[in-house]
């Protein structure tokens, strides 16, 4: 149903001369969801986002946002949309407060209540001058301005770049609260762990092509988690031959395996031995591509 969709991207192609930004990209963002847009640097995430905002023209294709055409109705769309660019500058030598108020006035949003509360939560001192801000604080200004006008759709390009881990956690909490209020969030990232933490679905893009759109849960099942354990006593690889576990390797008392399901069974097996050290981690995006998508492609007979 059309009204359930926040963003519909159909066959989007953007060429920069001979260089391909994105090619034939199809993507839908549902209303009320947090959608991750995952891909390595240069994959076409920013191109897709900036096309949606009509900051750049399209070579071909159609983008519909809240039922309106991205380029023809851009100004109307932007009344309902907040945006955090991946790279942006501030007007220099003014107080953050006056810069942000200026942006609020451009959005015809008179209340500063949300802006003040966001700044407080992110520990941003808005009485400082814009040219005195660190990279992290500048990023906070970007986050605040994207969310402060209480827009229905928020598009963010690498929102946590430059934020320290504590601030990242606070930011994720803010995003979930926004979602509870019915907001739609479309967020580009190159960090799989981040996307897993906050997103409902994820679209993965590489070299201008959309590789896959998945629910986070099914992505996790497919990719699994990597467990590394160091033991002080001898172990046998056979002990860990559990359903849902793959790539079991043992090297001088150090065990590495990939868990897709049955995490508790694995933990039980591990606990039978004396553990020196243990680490459970998410696949990095690069590993994900290497492992999962090249296999997918092979199966499809592409690569």
């Amino acid at each position, binding site marked *: 149903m059309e009204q359930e969709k926040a963003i519909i991207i159909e066959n989007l192609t953007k060429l920069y001369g001979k260089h391909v930004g994105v090619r034939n990209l199809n993507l839908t963002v549902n209303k009320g969801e947090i959608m991750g847009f995952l891909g390595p640097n240069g994959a076409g995430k*920013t191109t897709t986002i*900036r096309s949606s*905002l*009509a*900051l*750049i*023209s399209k070579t071909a294709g159609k983008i519909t946002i809240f039922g309106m055409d991205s380029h023809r109705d*851009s*100004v*109307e769309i*932007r*009344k309902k*949309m*907040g*945006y955090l*660019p*991946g*790279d*942006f*500058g*501030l*007007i*220099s*030598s*003014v107080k953050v407060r006056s810069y942000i108020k*200026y*942006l609020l*006035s*451009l*959005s*015809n949003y008179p209340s500063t209540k949300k802006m003040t509360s966001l700044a407080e939560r992110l520990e941003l001192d808005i009485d400082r001058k814009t040219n005195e801000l660190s990279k992290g604080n500048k990023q906070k200004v*970007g986050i605040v*301005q*994207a969310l402060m006008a209480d827009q229905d759709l928020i598009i963010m390009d690498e929102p946590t770049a430059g934020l320290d881990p504590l601030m990242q956690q606070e930011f994720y909490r803010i995003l979930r609260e926004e979602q509870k209020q019915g907001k739609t969030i479309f967020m580009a990232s190159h960090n799989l762990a981040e996307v897993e933490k906050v997103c409902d679905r994820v679209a993965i893009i590489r070299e201008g092509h959309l590789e896959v759109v998945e629910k986070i849960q099914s992505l996790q099942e497919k990719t699994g988690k990597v467990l590394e354990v160091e033991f002080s006593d001898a172990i046998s690889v056979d002990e860990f031959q559990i359903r849902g576990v793959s790539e079991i390797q043992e090297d001088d008392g150090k065990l590495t395996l990939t868990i897709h399901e049955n995490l508790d069974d694995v933990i039980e097996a591990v606990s039978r031995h004396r553990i020196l050290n243990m680490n459970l981690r998410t696949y990095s995006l690069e590993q994900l591509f290497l492992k999962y998508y090249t296999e997918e492609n092979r199966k499809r007979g592409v690569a």
Partner: protein
Amino acid sequence: MIGRITYMELRTGLKWLLIFGLLVTIVSISMPMIYPTFRDSLTEELEGANKVDLELPSEDGGMIVLSWEPLENATSYMVLEDNRSSMVTAKIKYLGVETSISFEKDFEEKRYYAVTAEVAETSDPVLIGIASTEEGEDPFQDLLKNPAYSGLTGGRSISMLEAKGFIALEFFSWWWMLAGLFIAYLSVSFIASDFENKRMDVMFSTPISRRRYLLEKFTAMSIIALFIILVAIGGLAGGLGNINALHEFSAETVFLSLIGCLPFLMVISAVGMLTAVLFQKVRVGMGVTFAFVFAEFFLYTFGNFSKSLEWMKAISIFNYWDYSSVIFDNIFKTENFIALTVLAIVLVIIGIWVFEKKDIPT
């Protein structure tokens, strides 16, 4: 269109505007105040020109007699001949100790003779005076008819001994450059720096159209242009009042001659904005806009050199800011004011059209 962007623009540009306003105030007040001193010393110098006397022959083929007052301490005299009063292509006519020479009139057009004296104690020759074959002509006046000068005064022969002439040559001949380049600089940098400093993405995530953005910036630039013109009007009128010259050069003339500059500056501003959205770089935009201003200036001066080059004048914006008509003939050409305003509007529309087509770079 006045709005929040206009306001922000004026606010961020305020520091520069005040510095520039101060500069304009100082120059426009002090320029008329230099005038009395300049006039007195020039009058003194021109009196010296009378020390050379030229007698034309009564009939064809007769002799010209050139005589001059002897100078004390002079060891020798030199006479230079040229067909221009500026003496830039002069040949030596005579070198010797006589104070009078006669020679045949073997030419049709006019000639100028400058007499200098070699003085023992000094190495530089002393100018005794300039005489012309044209009867009743003041060679210094002829110097001002030189195309290089008339280019600045709309082909008029003007006297630097009058306040009008002095102000037209000494104030207006550089005012365009000062004001024009300041406006060019501001209008390019106000937009191109938004590209360079990556402020466009955030700007255009708010519901502001590119048209409104440019119109508001243009309004800000027009307000700035009006401000510096008003400062100059105040300064110039104040300076003229201070030397009691307002009867010669009235406050109304000051106002009309300078206000005609407003659409002129708006055109420069529109060109600046157009180059800024086209090239999206401060340096490139600035280079192109400055080149435009100078090209227009040279078109205008070349257009004044000769009749066959008059078309050049017609395509120069300098032709449509005719301050000399106001100053010398008391005519304010409303049609020129309108023509420049229309041109500025057309350029802004082109700027909007270009901007709406262009991608905003990351």
